[in-house]
């Protein structure tokens, strides 16, 4: 048994596999398949200050080796999360990553303040949701704004703060450096790539929101490249995501520089994907005589 544990921004995860925000709810649904306490952590559904209803359906479209979604941050609000979901998650023993999204920079700070006294282990700033009109991706494409939100949140909480970055930018390493400079304890990437599908029979976009976020194996090579670029640009840990479906993908992403991985769309193809990735990582490490999963992080040797 290799050592699968990883430490990110002072938080110890029993393994580096974390379901990604928005794909795993608050864990209850997948708890019908397996003990979610086996997971390294859970990045829960993106939470806003007030309850949000989300976008009208259809909210999903299939794409080659991937999918588009335009959920638009539907969630019951931070107070409901604190009251109803944190105690449940705490009981499972899994590390809790609260994912928060604001309409204004002050929203982020306010949520961080409210989460400060709770049992969440880490706060992930969603400054890159492509499916909301206020904030969202607009915050994530401007280094000044992203850095400013980070600074406000850091001042509002003692919890470790991880900033989730959008790939829809010219230079993602620049964004990572901007939030690192303002005190971010980690970055996670990539959020979804903005995409669109059109129904050629109706001549209408498949998504009622017209555009949505692309995820799934299709985006994996873009995610690996960006994680590699960011890991080479910052000193804080990088959590890699984007199209990871197998333990091999997880190994590749960690070699590119990710200290842990998040798994999203793969859950919809295979609900067991995260636990199979954990088992696969364990086997891989044992078969290759590698003592701990951290030993492979960032080990790619560029030509």
């Amino acid at each position: 048994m290799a050592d699968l544990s990883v430490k990110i921004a002072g938080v110890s995860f029993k393994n580096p596999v974390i379901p990604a925000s928005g794909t795993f709810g608050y864990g209850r649904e997948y708890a019908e398949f397996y003990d979610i306490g086996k997971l390294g952590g859970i990045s829960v559904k993106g939470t806003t200050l007030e309850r949000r209803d989300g976008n009208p359906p259809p909210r999903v479209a299939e794409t080659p080796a991937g999918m588009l979604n335009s959920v638009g941050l539907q969630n019951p609000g931070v107070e409901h999360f604190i009251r109803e979901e944190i105690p449940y998650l705490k009981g499972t023993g899994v590390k809790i990553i609260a994912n928060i999204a604001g309409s204004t920079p002050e929203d982020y700070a306010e949520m961080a303040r409210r989460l400060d006294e709770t049992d969440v282990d880490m706060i992930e700033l969603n400054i890159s949701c492509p499916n909301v009109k206020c904030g969202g991706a607009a915050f994530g494409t401007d280094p000044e704004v992203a850095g400013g939100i980070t600074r406000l949140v850091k001042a509002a909480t003692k919890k470790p703060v991880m900033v989730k970055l959008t790939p829809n930018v010219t230079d993602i390493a620049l964004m990572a450096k901007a939030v690192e400079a303002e005190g971010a304890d980690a970055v996670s990437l990539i959020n979804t790539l903005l995409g669109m599908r059109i129904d050629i029979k109706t001549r209408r976009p498949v998504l009622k929101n017209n555009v949505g976020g692309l995820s799934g194996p299709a985006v994996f090579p873009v995610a690996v490249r960006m994680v590699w670029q960011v890991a080479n640009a910052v000193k804080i840990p990088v959590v890699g995501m984007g199209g990871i479906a197998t333990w091999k993908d997880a190994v590749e992403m960690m070699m590119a520089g990710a200290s842990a991985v998040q798994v999203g769309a793969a859950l919809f193809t295979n609900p067991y994907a995260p636990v199979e990735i954990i088992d696969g990582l364990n086997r891989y490490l044992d078969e290759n005589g590698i003592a701990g999963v951290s030993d492979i992080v960032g080990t790619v040797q560029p030509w």
Partner: protein
Amino acid sequence: MALHVGSYPLVKKEELAKGFYSFTLSCPEAAEAAKPGQFVNLKVPEFSLRRPISICEIDKAAGTLRLVLEVRGDGTEKLAAFEEGDKIDMLAPLGNGFAVNPAEKAAVIGGGIGVPPMLELAKRFSGTAYAVLGFRNEDASILEEDFRACCADTLLYTDDGSKGEKGFVTDGLKKLLSREKLDVIYACGPEIMLKNVIRLADSAGVRCQVSMEQRMACGVGACYVCACRMVMDGEEYYGHVCKDGPVFDSKQLVL
């Protein structure tokens, strides 16, 4: 655990009409757990998203589920290519299912691919249920004999009159309502049909449950993509077809 995931053999495949296939899968645990109105989520080779398919019949003794699917696009076309003996990766049973009281006088209303989920439901009423089925035309009509075998009466309509009467299921429902004192109406079909069925049920003061359809991803309530407009205490919100449904009391829905 009531939820089952695995690869289950396709033991019987029939083409019911052009583009409509009946699949019988051997899956004893899922069959044991299944209720009428629930659905399954099938993995399609080479596609990322599973396809939700209503359960048409449940045979607990044989340990099988019967599904009827319509080829609508590349994904369902790929599903339709499965042959007897192939194994299909399935998540089942999913969703809530219909609330059934076999002592009640019930009408089941199905339109197009909304017809299959009404069959297992109709059977639960031991021959007392009335069925109203609607199809585009004769070539797209399915399962008529199955309903005749288990219902007190089966009224069939096609848009063009090529089979049964020319008209819509609402015409049949009106006829039923005028001659029978119904306790409950169940319906599945296009949204416009559901709207009209609910209107008729409301006018007649009969309870109504409808089964909804929406594009899905996880199928278990975690991803929030299969939104449908609901209302509670006068406040509207988005519920989710896979978990809050697919069956809803008509009073819960905003259509």
